[in-house]
């Protein structure tokens, strides 16, 4: 069984090949790691202001474009003060 099975219906963080960070509920995946993310948000990092969170909704992300899928601890995540976290945005994957 794929390790992703245990992430189903949990909050995950996806880092894509173009360096973006999506947070949402994993609803499904297939053998090529195409995934369904419900209630998807994008977190945009910047060094000049806090993390901007953009609500996106239901997404299918193609497996080709996925670099990392991480399980989010919701209790820790909800305590984050996004407005006061600064960080450099990730760059795209270098092939």
């Amino acid at each position, binding site marked *: 069984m794929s390790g992703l099975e245990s992430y189903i219906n949990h909050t995950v963080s996806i880092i*894509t090949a173009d360096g973006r960070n999506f947070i949402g509920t994993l609803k*499904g995946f297939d053998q090529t790691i195409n995934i369904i993310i419900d209630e998807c948000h994008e977190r945009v990092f910047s060094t000049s202001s806090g993390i901007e969170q953009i609500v996106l*909704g239901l997404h*299918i992300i*193609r497996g080709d474009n996925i670099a990392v899928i991480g399980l989010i601890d919701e209790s820790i995540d909800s305590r984050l003060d996004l407005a006061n976290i600064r960080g450099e945005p990730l760059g795209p994957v270098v092939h």
Partner: protein
Amino acid sequence: MLPLSLLKTAQSHPMLVELKNGETYNGHLVSCDSWMNINLRDVICTSKDGDRFWRMPECYIRGSTIKYLRIPDEVIDMVKEDAQAKSRNRTELNKNRVANSAQNQRAARSGNRNNFGNRSGQLSGGPGNNTQRVGVSGQGNRLLAQNNKNRK
């Protein structure tokens, strides 16, 4: 739930497709296949920097060029009904399959004996053995047909 079943359920719904090159396509999904190739209607294409737009009546997008698809929220609830109905069918199918495979194993066992007979017949080049062979494969086909019927 599989991403491609969600996509199939999203047929006729509006969606946004971002390609790997950064272009986005807004339109209504007409059809899709198992490679994620898609047909859109009433499309607005936006350039990577978002400052140029093209309107087109329809377009076809190769699945491998897609980065992600944004789909209306309500579509996920529509899949659930489909998926549940399908998984119900599947459990019934599996019951039939188990019954059939037991039947097939019995058929295969008795069929093997005949096949040995055929093989030796073939080596000696006897044309008469063919009739027996047809009989055996005919039986196999019947079982297959029956199997297929249950699968539908």
